[in-house]
């Protein structure tokens, strides 16, 4: 059973200005004692998530909404294990898959087939697993002979199709999606729709961060709103 519980989660991180990131300033600030210290270390601490509590159960399709910078992506990254909590805790049961960047791992110089493998490995699939899904992916992407060409020769739309086709082939218990996932022209959209539906159907928990109300009302059964890193409302 997939399950997520978030207890009093706080995430803070220090943003270093150009000056404090260099060793020289660090050393100089030590050499000059306390006087310039505060100026030389212009570290700004951002509290991206502040005391968040949330229970997510099997079958939940959560639409995560909020302004830019409200902490949606940060929350997804914490659930993906990329960012670590600075306060509180999260407990996760189930395999986590993330579509934060559907192209992560892909390489413009490699051809389409190679990129299916590279992207597949990045999503935690084994060689055999990718091989069994290869037909499904190539058929869905519908790129034909272009799969033998380097990715850099693709148009943006073709690139997006391929990334989408591989990224939606994975099987996870928990899926984290950032912003809308879609690709391709109008004719392709219908296929995309079906594929997202089947992806959601086989995934026990989906968390979708999006600004698209249409997408959320169509696919999600819960709605979580964040504002300035704080949970504003949840249903």
């Amino acid at each position: 059973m997939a399950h997520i519980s978030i207890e009093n989660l706080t995430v803070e991180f220090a943003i270093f200005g150009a000056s404090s990131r260099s060793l020289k300033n660090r050393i100089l600030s030590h050499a000059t004692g306390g006087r310039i210290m505060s100026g030389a270390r212009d570290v700004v601490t951002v509290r991206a998530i502040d005391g968040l509590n949330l229970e997510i159960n099997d079958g939940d399709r959560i639409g995560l909404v909020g302004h830019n910078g409200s902490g949606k992506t940060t929350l997804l990254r914490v659930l993906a294990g990329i960012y670590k909590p600075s306060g509180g805790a999260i407990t996760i049961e189930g395999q986590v898959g993330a579509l934060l960047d559907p192209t992560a791992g892909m390489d413009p110089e490699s051809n389409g087939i190679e990129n299916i493998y590279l992207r597949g490995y990045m999503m935690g699939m084994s060689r055999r697993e990718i091989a069994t899904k290869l037909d499904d992916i190539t058929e869905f992407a519908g790129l034909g002979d272009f799969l033998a060409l380097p990715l850099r020769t693709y148009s943006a739309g073709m690139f997006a199709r391929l990334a989408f086709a591989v990224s939606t082939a994975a099987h996870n218990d928990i899926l984290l999606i950032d912003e809308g996932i879609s690709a391709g022209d109008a004719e392709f959209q219908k296929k995309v729709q079906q594929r997202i539906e089947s992806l959601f159907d086989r995934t026990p928990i989906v968390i979708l961060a999006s600004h698209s109300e249409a997408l959320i009302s169509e696919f999600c059964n819960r709605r979580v709103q964040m504002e300035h890193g704080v949970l504003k409302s949840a249903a």
Partner: protein
Amino acid sequence: MMHAEDGESAQPVLNSPLDVKKSHEIPQSTTGMTTAAHPKQQAPAIRISAEAVPAQAFADIINGARLYELWSRFAFHDIRQRFRRSVLGPLWLTISMGILVATLGLVFSTLFQQDASKTLPYISTGIIFWGLLTGCITDGTTVFISSEAIIRNVPAPLSIHFYRLMARNIIIWGFNMAIYLVVVAYFELVPGWNALLFIPGFILFLINLAWMSLAVGVLSTRYRDIPQLVANFIQVMFFLTPIFWSPLTLPNRPAFVTLNPFYHLIEIVRAPLLGDEVSSASWALCIGMAAAGLGFTAWLYRRAHARIAYWV
């Protein structure tokens, strides 16, 4: 269901706070968050609390190592990528090394009027292992920075980037070792039983490279001057370390040789391959350095690994 205003004291709580009993039932796990990596096995409940974050550094290293399929393939991909569309492909690694060794061998055997059958094996092994050493360290400076897109978007242990780097450099080293074999065959060099010491020597050599590379990687991600410092340091060390010159030609060994950790590191792999004995001082120094270095890097990684995703 519940909702509070944006007050300082009021915190929005959803679905009631966690049932205390339940959270105790869930075993505290240190296995990290690498669930996407093992799609086959049923994932146990993983709890990440703020207090337990430093302890996960070790789990990150272990879980990363388990993903050998991922990082070894990306390491091979890096090599293939570098020589894509070239006719000879990665053979260029071997050819470049051969040209470098032949030129240096020619220059120094003429310059110092030494026997080429002595200098060439010495220079070739020295350069080959120097290449592995500096490759791991200089690549270490960008190990996390260059993988930013993956680090920030893919749920995987950070250490996979480090393993990928080590694997890539060892593959390159493999291509370069062909030159050593050619030189040994050409000069009919017989290293004898001392050659067996190469195995423990190489393991110790790699352990030292591993901690140096990871430590440099963490520090470079945080302080962006470190890569430049390291590049200069490596360049200076190339001349100070007996790679293309031998300390045997000197009347007495200067401190920059006897106290040079790189000299001893090279020595524990070079001497066995040439059939020479490794001094016990070199063994002791390299073992001590490995122990101290691993300790330091473990401390550093424990402290910093959770922040690397913010720093890249």
